[in-house]
Structure formats: structure tokens, C-alpha cells
């Protein structure tokens, strides 16, 4: 049975829905549930019966799709999370353009499924481009205010830049093995292996919002919040982490790959954490946290435990999606995403509780799925360098801090809260509820036999770690909570002004990008244009000027010569005068003046060539062609 069904169902259905245009919320919600539920069902069927598919395009190019345990897990996670998110979107987003939004979100899920099931780089590339395009369309969904399309473009260009890496990898793989199959990657060696590994790493990092591509996540926040939820939890960003986890066995053969992955991940985790803590914009805080969490996954992959990374990916999806949804609700209720303006706990208690469940996961507290997977990552880190686990723990501290801050400030209680905010209806809450339930379900991972079983099912092993480290990291987390509480209580407005605000925008990374990349390219373009303009008809002009100059020069010279001659001849010139006075003069005048006139004329004529009449021009061209042919004929 063919596996193409899995991605194709949502893709086609999404196009249809998008084409149908706006319908009633109930209708769209039903469609979303039906399509994505169907996708989930197919995924379940496909996983249990281990479908595969291949499409022979030409004998050289063949697309293939298959499951590994990892991809099977993700393939199940994606529609499940997407179902809840899209359902929420249909109930909550603006009614105008809702049909398009829903359709594209479903399509987006389909593209992600294609990425997940892909078994060769070409298929991956197709899915990759699909989700890239969809992300652009979704971020600039509310295209009527000019900023959103810009942001969409920014995100798109950023990720595109990363995609270059994937393209390079595809071409390198094809040149090396003559096929796009994943299996070929392991067989590579030498520079091509390097190109493939780092190309994929580059594109993965760009999609996953790692440093230095992280800023696009902030711009992406201009999209609707449910879009952000889908983007960050299940699809686009997750794809980055997923793909390197999927390919880790082959990629890690490349020298330096693991180190690079660890470094990228760690730097992103720390900078993202700091940014998140300093950030006062609810959704941006979450965006930064996404970068940080994916950084953890990169670290896990780098340390050689892709299974852990994927588990964290799944868990992260379950708790990040509800956070974004609730952030969206809170933002609408508080008319703006400023954390210090929210404090909505009293107004929407249910949402607050559900968010708390998710936030606990983000904070990585014990008995939360997020906590478990983070601990696993720390354990994994223990097997590499001695200082790495501590760095990750510090990252954990930061995540605990911003999670706490987000929760307390967004849904904290405030005594003097007499705002009349209408709590969202059940239709908007239900998606949130589903996701929170999923989050709770992930807590079971703390039960060792279960987690072992799952790891075994993903035929990977879980890292062994020392209890000492566990306690240490828990203390780190506790510190993080304390910091978060402190910030929420004492400095609710942190990050709205001053250095904190400046630092909260990725520590100034976007500015760096603007200065270091955008400006130079722009300048280069301008320079090229300038050169183009000024060299067009330089030729005739230069010749003309030279002609005039030469003429003047020679004329002057001639005066001097003549005078000189006359002065010299004056001494013994009497008898010369009546022998031939006119004769000498004509000679001595004629030569220089004649040459001067000649040069001047030359200049003028050359200038006259440039008539601006096209037929003259192509007459010249014809002449040139004839001349060339003549020369060639003579040569032959």
C-alpha cells in the first residue's frame, strides 16, 4: 500500500479547502477535524503496517518514502498536534480569510508529513519547499497591513538562505552516488560528505531558528497565534530538528558534524534562553523558548542520541502548541502581547490552568514530560564533554525562568482586576484542552519501564546518567523558577525599555545581520548599477574629449613653434624673407594646424556616431557583423 497517501490527503484536501474560501466556523472546524483525523488514522495504519512508497520518475530520479521508528513517531505526532491547533484556529481566528488560513494550515501539515516520510533527499526537498512556501503564506496571512508580508518575506528569505545548504547537499549527493537516497549519505566520504552533512545542518539550523538564523522566528510572530503554534510545535521549526535527528546515523560520520551541531544548539539554547527571559512580548518570549528548546535537541543529536532529541521534539510539540494558543487568547484579551499588561488569571481561569500544565512542561519541572526529556538530554550531554551538561543545565535554568515568568505574568492573579474580559468559549478552549491532555499524557514518561519501552520501540537507547547530576539540574531548575517568580513579582516590565529591551531582541543579532549582510549586498547592487550607467556611452565621449584636447594642445604647440621659428630666423631672416617668406609660413602653419583640425574633426565625428536612433545603431551592428565575417573569411 502506498505511503504517498499520507502526505497527499492533507495536501489535496488543504488545497480544496483553501480554494473553497470562507465558510462557517463549524463547517471549517469539521473539515479540519475530518481531514487531519483521517491523516492521523492513515498515519496509524501506515505505521502499524509499515507502508512504503516509491515513484520512479526517470531511472535516475526516483522518489521514495518509508518509515524509520523515529519518523513513525513524528508522523503520528504531527497530525495529532495539528488537529488540535487547526481546530482551535477555525474557532478562534478572524473570520475573514479563515477558509484560506485553514486550508493552508492543512496543506502545511501535509508538507510536513511529506518531509517526515521522505526517504530520499529529493522528496525531502519537495516537502521542504512546500512547508517553506506555506510558512510564508501563513505568516503574511493578514496581508492587508503592510508589515505582515514583510515579515513573511523576511522569514522566507532567511529560511531560503538555509535551504541553499540543502540544495548543495542534494546536488553533492547526486554527483557522488547518482541517486538521492538517504542510504547513499553514509557511503560518502571526503569533501562531498562534508558538503552534504553541513549543507543539511545549515538548512536544518535555518528552519529550526538556530543562531544565526534565529531572528526570523520573531518576525514570524506577526502571523496569527495559531499559525505560530503550528509553526513552532509541529511543522516548520520541528522539521529542522527532525531532519538531523532522522539522518544522525549517517551525518555523524562526517568529521566535525557532532561538534558543530552541539555548538549551534548550545549557543542557541543559551542566547535564546536569555532572550526569552528578557523578552516582554508574550509570543516572542515563546519564540525564543522554541529556539532554545530546539537548541537542546541539536545538542542531543550532536551527543549521539537522536531518539532523545525526537522524544523531546514530541514532548515540546505537545506543550509549546497550547502555550502559543493561550498566548494568542491572552493577547487578544489584553489587546496586545505585553506581558506586564496581562495578568488575566482572574478573567480566564480555565485557560490559565491549561496553560499552567503546559508551562510546567516548558519549565522542565519533574513529573512533567518536558522535564523528563530535558533530563534525558542532560544525561546525553554527560557522555560528551564534562562541561556540556552544566551548560545545558544552565539552559534549563533559563527555560524554567522564562516559563515561570510567562505563566505568572500572563495568567497571574491580580487583586485589583476589574477588567471585564469575556473568557473564550468552549469551542476555542477545546483545542487547548486536547493539547494540555497530551502534555499530561507525556508525564507518564517518568515511569522508567514505559520510557525504556518507548526508547526500545524507537530502537534507540536512553543515556545513563548519575542521580547526582539529576539532583544538580533540579536545583538549577528551582533557581530558574525563583528567578522567574522574582521577575514576575518585582520587575514585570522587564524588557520593555533600556538595555534589556535592546538585548531582548536576540542580543542585537538582527541588527548585526542587517549591517553585516543586507547593507553590503545592497551597496554592491547600487555599485553595479552605477558602473552600468556610467560605462554605457563612455566610449564615444572619451574619444571626443581626447580629440578636443589633442586639437587644443597641438594648436598651442603650433603657436609656440611658429613664434620660435620666426624669432630664431629673425637674426639672419632678411634675405630669407625675400627669398621665400610665404613659403616657410605655409609649411610651418599648415602642418600643425592641419593636424589640429584633423583631430578636432575626428573627435566631432566620433561624437556624431552616437545619434540615439536605433536604426543607425543596428546599421553599425550589421556593418560590424559583415566586417567580422570578412575577417574570418580572410583568416580561413
Amino acid at each position, binding site marked *: 500500500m502506498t505511503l504517498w497517501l499520507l502526505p497527499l490527503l492533507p495536501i489535496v484536501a488543504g488545497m480544496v479547502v483553501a480554494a473553497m474560501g470562507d465558510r462557517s466556523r463549524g463547517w471549517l472546524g469539521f473539515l479540519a477535524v475530518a481531514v487531519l483525523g483521517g491523516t492521523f488514522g492513515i498515519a496509524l495504519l501506515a505505521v502499524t503496517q509499515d507502508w512504503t512508497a516509491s515513484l520512479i520518475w526517470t531511472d535516475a530520479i526516483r522518489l521514495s518514502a518509508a518509515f524509520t521508528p523515529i519518523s513513525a513517531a513524528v508522523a503520528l505526532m504531527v497530525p495529532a498536534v495539528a488537529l488540535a491547533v487547526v481546530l482551535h484556529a477555525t474557532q478562534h481566528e478572524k473570520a475573514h480569510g479563515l477558509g484560506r488560513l485553514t486550508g493552508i494550515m492543512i496543506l502545511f501539515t501535509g508538507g510536513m508529513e511529506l518531509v517526515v516520510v521522505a526517504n530520499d533527499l529529493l522528496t525531502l526537498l519537495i516537502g521542504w519547499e512546500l512547508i517553506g512556501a506555506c510558512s510564508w503564506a501563513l505568516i503574511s496571512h493578514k496581508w492587508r497591513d503592510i508589515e505582515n508580508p514583510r515579515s513573511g518575506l523576511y522569514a522566507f528569505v532567511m529560511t531560503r538562505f538555509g535551504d541553499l545548504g540543502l540544495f548543495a547537499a542534494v546536488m553533492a549527493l547526486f554527483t557522488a552516488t547518482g541517486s538521492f537516497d538517504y542510504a547513499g549519505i553514509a557511503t560518502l566520504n571526503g569533501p562531498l560528505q562534508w558538503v552534504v552533512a553541513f549543507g543539511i545542518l545549515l538548512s536544518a539550523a535555518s528552519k529550526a531558528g538556530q543562531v544565526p538564523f534565529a531572528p526570523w522566528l520573531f518576525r514570524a510572530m506577526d502571523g496569527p497565534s495559531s499559525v505560530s503554534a503550528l509553526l513552532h510545535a509541529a511543522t516548520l521549526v520541528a522539521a529542522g530538528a527532525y531532519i538531523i535527528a532522522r539522518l544522525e546515523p549517517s551525518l555523524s560520520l562526517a568529521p566535525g558534524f557532532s561538534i558543530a551541531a552541539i555548538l549551534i544548539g548550545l549557543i542557541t539554547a543559551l542566547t535564546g534562553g536569555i532572550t526569552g527571559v528578557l523578552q516582554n512580548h508574550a509570543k516572542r518570549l515563546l519564540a525564543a523558548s522554541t529556539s532554545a528548546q530546539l537548541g537542546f535537541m541539536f545538542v542531543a543529536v550532536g551527543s549521539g542520541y537522536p531518539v532523545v532529541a525526537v522524544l523531546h521534539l514530541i514532548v515540546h510539540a505537545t506543550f509549546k502548541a497550547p502555550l502559543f494558543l493561550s498566548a494568542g487568547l491572552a493577547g487578544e484579551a489584553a489587546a496586545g502581547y505585553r506581558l506586564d499588561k496581562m495578568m488575566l488569571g482572574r478573567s480566564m481561569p480555565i485557560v490559565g490552568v491549561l496553560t499552567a500544565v503546559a508551562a510546567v512542561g516548558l519549565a522542565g519541572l519533574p513529573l512533567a514530560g518536558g522535564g523528563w526529556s530535558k533530563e534525558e538530554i542532560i544525561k546525553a550531554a554527560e557522555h560528551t564533554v564534562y562541561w556540556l551538561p552544566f551548560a545545558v543545565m544552565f539552559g534549563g535554568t533559563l527555560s524554567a525562568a522564562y516559563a515561570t515568568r510567562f505563566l505568572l505574568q500572563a495568567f497571574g492573579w491580580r487583586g485589583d482586576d476589574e477588567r471585564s474580559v469575556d473568557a473564550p468559549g468552549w469551542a476555542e478552549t477545546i483545542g487547548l484542552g486536547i493539547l494540555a491532555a497530551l502534555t499530561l499524557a507525556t508525564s507518564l514518561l517518568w515511569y522508567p519501564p514505559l520510557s525504556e519501552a518507548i526508547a526500545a520501540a524507537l530502537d534507540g537507547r536512553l543515556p545513563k546518567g548519575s542521580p547526582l547530576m539529576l539532583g544538580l539540574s533540579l536545583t538549577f531548575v528551582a533557581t530558574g523558577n525563583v528567578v522567574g517568580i522574582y521577575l514576575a513579582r518585582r520587575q514585570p516590565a522587564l524588557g520593555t525599555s533600556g538595555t534589556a529591551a535592546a538585548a531582548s531582541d536576540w542580543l542585537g543579532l538582527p541588527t548585526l545581520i542587517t549591517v553585516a549582510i543586507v547593507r553590503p549586498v545592497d551597496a554592491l547592487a547600487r555599485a553595479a548599477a552605477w558602473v552600468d550607467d556610467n560605462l554605457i556611452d563612455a566610449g564615444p565621449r572619451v574619444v571626443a574629449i581626447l580629440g578636443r584636447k589633442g586639437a587644443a594642445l597641438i594648436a598651442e604647440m603650433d603657436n609656440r613653434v611658429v613664434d620660435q621659428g620666426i624669432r630664431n630666423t629673425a637674426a639672419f631672416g632678411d634675405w630669407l624673407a625675400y627669398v621665400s617668406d610665404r613659403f616657410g609660413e605655409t609649411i610651418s602653419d599648415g602642418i600643425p594646424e592641419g593636424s589640429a583640425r584633423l583631430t578636432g574633426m575626428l573627435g566631432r565625428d566620433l561624437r556624431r556616431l*552616437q*545619434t*540615439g*536612433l*536605433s*536604426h543607425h*545603431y*543596428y*546599421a553599425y551592428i*550589421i556593418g560590424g557583423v559583415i566586417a567580422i565575417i570578412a575577417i574570418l573569411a580572410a583568416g580561413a
Partner: protein
Amino acid sequence: MTLTAILIVASALFGIGLFGALSQKSFVMLMMGLELMLNGTLLAAVGFWAFTLEGAPKGQLLAILVMAVMAVELAIGFALVVAVYRKRQADVVEALGTLKE
């Protein structure tokens, strides 16, 4: 009917076309000159196809491409003529001196 004869005819058509393309003032007439040149090319292409390469299909393909080129040239040419006329009310080459600067 030898290849030489065909090529001579083709070159005659080409020469006339060149004359027209160079000498005509009106855009449209100018395009006719170009068309005539292409006509010669077409004839030469078919001639070569029929006489030198044992009727390898590629020759006919070339001829078809020449026709496509004619169509493209005609369409774009007329579109440009219309556009220029709108902008300048100019229908002769002389009226466009803007290439000077």
C-alpha cells in the same frame, strides 16, 4: 533542385529582408524585413534538412523553431509598437531618439 540553388534563393530572401529591415522607417515595415530574413532562414533550414542530413528529424524541429521565433517576434514587436505609439504617438523609427542618453 539542388541544395545550392535553395541556399541561393534563401540568401536572396535574406538579403532583401536585410535591405528592408535597414531601410524602412516604419516599425511595421521594419518587422516585415525581419520576417523576410527569417523566411530565408527557414528555407535554408529545410533545405539543409532535406539534402544534407538524410532527413534527421532535428532539421524539421529547427524549422519549427524558426516559425516559433517568427511568431514571438511578431507578437512582441506589435505589442511594443502599440506601447510606443501610446507613449509617443510615434510610428517611425526616427521618432525615438531617446537611445542617445
